[in-house]
């Protein structure tokens, strides 16, 4: 998936991949992260 130039909502999970980690990956792929959230499903 080409993320460059796209806006991204980074939704992560605490015990999996947290939101900030997802956001960092998206940023490095050229996306603009507009919202970062982490959920706690436990």
């Amino acid at each position, binding site marked *: 998936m080409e993320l460059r130039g796209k806006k991204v909502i980074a939704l*992560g999970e*605490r*015990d*999996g*991949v*947290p*939101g*900030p*980690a997802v956001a960092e990956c998206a940023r490095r792929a050229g996306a603009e992260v507009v919202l*970062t*959230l*982490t959920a*706690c*499903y*436990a």
Partner: protein
Amino acid sequence: MPDGVAASVLEDRIERHGATPLLGVDGQLLGAVLPAHEEDDTLTGQVLLENLACKATAALALRHLLARPGAVATEKVRYVISCGEEAVGDRYQRGGGNLAKAVAEWAGCTRATGSDVKAFCCGPMHSLMIAGALVQSGLYDDVVVLAGGSLAKLGMKFQGHVKHAMPIVEDVLAGFAAHVGRDDGASPMLRLDAVGRHEVASGSAPLAVVKALYTEPLARVGLTLLDVDRFSLELHNPEATEPAGSGNVPLNNYRTLASLAVIEKLIERDGIEAFVRTRGMPGFSPTQGHIASAIPYLGHALRGLTDGGLTRTMFTGKGSLFLGRMTQLSDGVSLIVERNPRRSNGGRAWSFEARR
């Protein structure tokens, strides 16, 4: 028991005074909790009921602790740390209050004072660490860490249970209490020289988190993951979480931990399942956040470290700080509890010592 109140009076208080109704399973009106203030959202009947449930279950746990053979004398308890998740206060300091001393009062600990420690599900680990430090410093000889249950989390994942036509299994208000005292030569030791911390700069990547909570503290005292007989993590009962789509939380976290052992070349990749089986355990705790967070194994660990075959156990709690919207960070603290090197017969269950 005092006389009851007529249903008509209860209905009046619900309708005119905003009291929170208490209904039986058949829908019958059993009682009502009045708000303590007309305009204070932190003193509604619902909030007071949640705080009261937390206080009652914590006090019950403390009284059980104090009633055990060989337990610390009630009057010797000098400090109580409550790490329940309820926020006691009023509109001018929402959550700024203190449940610990209220629980100590109910349990008859007349010489105790105390305070609350808040860190979401990580609260119990922070509290045990602080309790150990208070004892090690010599400030107090006997500290109790406790928590009551969360009324708000009863039936938290009920939709998944209803969807799968199974009973709503989150029907338990749990509590715990643990005594931290000076070294008695028999009780297991809390290793304050090997506390694991998820620091602000630790990052949120899964590998960074597990390294901060396991590799770094163990290495600090010359140990590896293989020197720990049993790890206690989030111990949510998967019977409650899997139907709700949350998966088997303990199993997933044990596999992550085993993966760290592979990365550190302590085990081979095909040894992951054996690592999980021998150093982990099935989740068995009610899904009450802080209650399920490593602490349910403490009593079992103390037995294993005194009368059983365990040498060293490790407890790790993680807290979802981001839920409060003040940060994107999570939190974590890990603690090592190990056999007393001077272990003799007669170790006291449900109490353990801070290493001096």
